[in-house]
């Protein structure tokens, strides 16, 4: 098992989580919120965050896909098996995005619906946990392989 490389994946959901947090915590001052001048700023903010999130999607998915491919080549069946579900999830997520093209999945007009936001946030946490665990697992595997040489 020579999966020495530490996955960059481990980092990808982090900015997402921070971004979702930023989305969620709007300014708490209600007067400020009721203020029309704030609307533009807030809207820009949401669009900016969604844009950022969208930019991260493809790199994350492709890096993960690459890893899976490498595991496949290295005939690391166990590791591959662990990653396959996520790979399929990514594929599903990518191909079930809204029909109107450019927006991959984080759509500024619907992201603030609490259920979608919750879902995205949960998804990010789960992925973060998964990537972290796999990072340690890969590390362990690498050390194990090195030691057993």
């Amino acid at each position, binding site marked *: 098992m020579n999966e020495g490389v530490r996955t960059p994946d481990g980092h990808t959901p982090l900015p997402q989580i921070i971004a979702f947090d930023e989305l969620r915590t709007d300014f708490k001052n209600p007067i400020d919120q009721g203020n*029309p001048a704030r609307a533009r700023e*807030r809207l820009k903010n949401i669009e900016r965050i969604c844009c950022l999130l969208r930019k991260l999607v493809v790199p994350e998915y492709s890096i993960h896909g690459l890893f899976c491919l490498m595991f496949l080549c290295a005939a690391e069946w166990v590791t591959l098996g662990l990653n396959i579900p996520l790979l399929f999830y990514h594929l599903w997520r990518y191909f079930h995005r809204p029909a109107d093209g450019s927006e991959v999945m984080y759509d500024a007009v619907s992201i*603030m*619906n609490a259920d979608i936001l919750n879902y995205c946030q949960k998804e990010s946490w789960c992925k973060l946990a998964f990537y972290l665990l796999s990072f340690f697992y890969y590390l362990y595997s690498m050390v194990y392989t090195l030691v057993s040489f």
Partner: protein
Amino acid sequence: MHPSSGYRLHPQNYIAASGHYSQGPGKMTSLPPESQCGDYYSGLYPVPTHSPTPSTVSQPPAAQQLYSRGPLPPQMMGSSPGSFQGAAPSASHLHTSASQPYSFVNHCSNPAVYSANSSVASQGFPPTCGHYAMSTVSNAAYPSVSYPSLPAGDPYGQMLTSQNTPIFRPVKDNSFSGQSTPISHPSPLPPPPSQQQQQQQQQSLSGYSNPLWSAPGLQSTQDNLNRNHTASPATASNNPVHTDLLSRPVMQNAQSPKPSPVVSTVLSGTSATRTPPAANHPVRPVASATQPSELLQHKGMQYGEYVNNQASSAPTPLSSTSDDEEEEDEDEEAGVDSSSTTSSASPMPNSYDALEGGNYPDMLSSAASSPAPDPAPEPDHAATLAPAAPQPTKMSKPFGYGYPTLQPGYQNAAAPLNSGVQSSSSMYSGFQQYTQPYPGGNQLSSSLAGLSLQSSPQPESLRPVNLTQERNVLPATPVWAPVPNLNVDLRKLNCSPDSFRCTLTNIPQTQALLNKAKLPLGLLLHPFRDLTQLPVITSNTIVRCRSCRTYINPFVSFIDQRRWKCNLCYRVNDVPEEFMYNPLTRSYGEPHKRPEVQNSTVEFIASSDYMLRPPQPAVYLFVLDVSHNAVEAGYLAILCQSLLENLDKLPGDSRTRIGFMTFDSTIHFYNLQDGLSQPQMLIVSDIEDVFLPTPDSLLVNLCESKELIKDLLNALPNMFTNTRETHSALGPALQAAFKLMSPTGGRVSVFQTQLPSMGAGLLQSREDPNQRSSTKVVQHLGPATDFYKKLALDCSGQQTAVDLFLLSSQYSDLASLACMSKYSAGCIYYYPSFHCTHNPSQAEKLQKDLKRYLTRKIGFEAVMRIRCTKGLSMHTFHGNFFVRSTDLLSLANINPDAGFAVQLSIEENLTDTSLVCFQTALLYTSSKGERRIRVHTLCLPVVSSLADVYAGVDVQAAICLLANMAVDRSISSSLSDARDALVNAVVDSLSAYGSTLSNLQHSALIAPSSLKLFPLYVLALLKQKAFRTGTSTRLDDRVYAMCQMKSQPLVHLMKMIHPNLYRIDRLTDEGAVHVNDRVVPQPPLQKLSAEKLTREGAFLMDCGSIFYIWIGKSCDNNFIEDVLGYPNFASVPQKMTHLPELDTLSSERTRSFITWLRDSRPLSPILHVVKDESPAKAEFFQHLVEDRTEAAFSYYEFLIHVQKQICK
């Protein structure tokens, strides 16, 4: 109503109120007794006019009498028609049994109607609502009844007192009827009765309280007593009956409601005030078990001071019927009350009506709808009295016992009822207590649910209905919203169901319970509805909770004089000094009597804290398509004409600005700067990079440049007559419009007649006409490009809303275009195959829509925040807006015809609360440049048992929420998915209900009465343009229907989903209501099935935005001649859109009925006369949802289908 310090009340209110005052009740008493109701009323009305003492005595007997008289007939009806129904499965049953309650309503509500209409006035389309109006109470201002120390001359005090004594009302009203000055109501009051009453009140109070209660407890009791006693001494004698009966478990219970319904009839308007004891004690043990006792204690402290006063001023103990049990009840009630209102505010129900008057005309369901009571008790009655025979034998059987196997004779009305009563009492011991207040009217007519709730011992809404065997599920009167099971005071204060509805009027305690019930939980909002009266409050400090920023509302509790507890987050807040003074009563130290705390719908004028920039002026920009296609269709003439007519009526002030743009393949701007001799047209042909030629003079002040604008509007229709330009550069035009509007924000009205074919945002035709009737996949429901969405977001950020008028003859990809309105909080109008001469009905519709559109109220730069009690959370919003934060909707514009829906979930268990509240706050800039906040607060009870959840289902709200969810589903997933989800919603909820019944009969499809219309509505939804498959539907039509589902308020949506069908060739005055001195007949609703259509008849179908009159082939020539103005059927033309004004009785009736229906909605619908055999009849027949079509189930087949699914 002197506008005193800082307070301003809308003058309307008062004028209107006076209208009520002087007119309504006066009419009421003078109403000639008619038909069946005659003896009822003649018996009843005299009573009120007597002086208090006699009435006390005479009432109970009268009540009893009435009781025995009133309900019996229905009982007979219930059972006897049932027996022959199997043989004659026609409308007859429904007809007969329904007719009685029906006429009742009308009767009773007559006065209301009068008054409501007299108060009509000002806002958009007020009058009609009046017709549901029960607010006979209406009159006054802020009550202060329970404070005897009030100077008798004080208008408010006096009036209220008298108001609180419904018995006197007629007297008083009579004396007022001559009065025309709005403000003077109080003064002419005949003092003796009211004073007497006051005294009596006090006496009774003291009588109650002296012996038993220590000072702290006293006041709260007193207040409750006040409520009861002020209302009528009769209660006193009634109450004991209740309590006694209630303490006994089963059979008695069924009878206990006797007195209350009757009494309530007697006292019409305010009657509900009295009933609380009856209705409420049962509730308390269950619902308020958790009511913190500390509240009571607080109360005690709070009222200590008053108590002394009162006690000393009430020397003689009343020899009333008070007994310990009752006092306990009263006390408990106080406890309940205290959680939401201070008890000294108890008289507020009246004041509520007073303030709001016509404001809540539709609040029929509230207690004010006193006319309602009779019919509802009837079923119970039928249950308790009539079919007593089967009962004993089957007594021991559990819920839903042998219902399916009942003898045919009983199957229809009596038996099910009976089983319901019995089983509920035997099974749900806890529940039974709870049941009384439930909405009961569902069976015969839920519109009558008002008071009846309190009377039914078992929730009528839980009565199991065997859907496959009940042929006539549709009641004969329109279905009203169920009334939340709250105590009467809260109920009176609660928000009108027209503004605010919840799909479950009993909120389940936990998410698990909600999941078990398989019903959608959500809110339906119509926040900016046209109101005839609305308390407007100007105050330096708007009192809000410091942590959750909830606005103070009627459901908060005052812990003491200085502190109040937020009902959403339970934080204790201080009452600001300013709030202590009540300018209406000019008294100090009564924060609970401020209008904010007396009305669940109020409007604040916001201080400068609520704005960073000065409020924007009203800015209107019209973006008009002038390509060849558009000129051909000829909409320009209609638009310009409408604009010319309504230019002065556009909402706005002296700052109002207006601008025009036209486009084909180039964009034309119009310089209308004041000082020019004629409008200047500026053409920009660079559509790749649009710029504004003269940014300053394109939007001009309406007043200053009025002449130029008129010139332009006169010239515009003829300017492009010879154009050969067929392209349409909509995208660039919108970009230009956005640039133009950015500095101010406002409203952009876009008129488009074809697919945009140039520049940014161009679209391709995506519709395949061969797929129109496909049963499988319907594609392209979502947008093709995100250009319009992005543009809408930009607009929304700049407080600009884009309204789309699509007048096209071919496919125009509404799915993409609609995005520009959806996310910028605009609205969408669609006129398929519009042509000004070839399609006059569409032209007429456009004209009417435009009139409404241009003149209706408008709010700019709005945000709407929805808050709910801790533990609940909102997760999905439906409507046209941009969601800016998880509970904040950004609305660039808000219009009175916009509706919203919200889905809710229960995040934390609600075990420690018995009430939940929802508050919508809409902050907007009015067209006059004022920043205003409109606040609606809705309060609902929390329940812990599944049966209660089912009892409180508001089926119409549920169906509207489901429709919204289905639209989302069909766009994000697929149409067939959405259809499946709809069917599953029925299957799941009915099977979940079935599993609560202990012995489920697989052969029967059982639904609780509250859900009996659910399958029908879902079927109607499946056959609606938006969701139907198999029938040829153009993509744009489908998408438009979907857009409407998302953005229409509930009332309009329901008509769209399930139209109302009436037979109009035999209109009679029986049960007619009076509106503005017109007699409006009230034909019963027919079910939507061809089986109801006879060739001899003529039928009117009300689909919301369109009316069809279907004339049978062998329709009576008299009718055709009298109403349509043609000698016989053959000579009636194919296209007829108006009824002639003929001077015959039947013509008058028909017209007044249609006008009345029209007046009840903002967009006046167009009328089509459809002859049997004419090609247009297909359009009419597609709305008959209960019938089978080639592609869809009939109602019965659908039920069978559902049943199969359940059994799977």
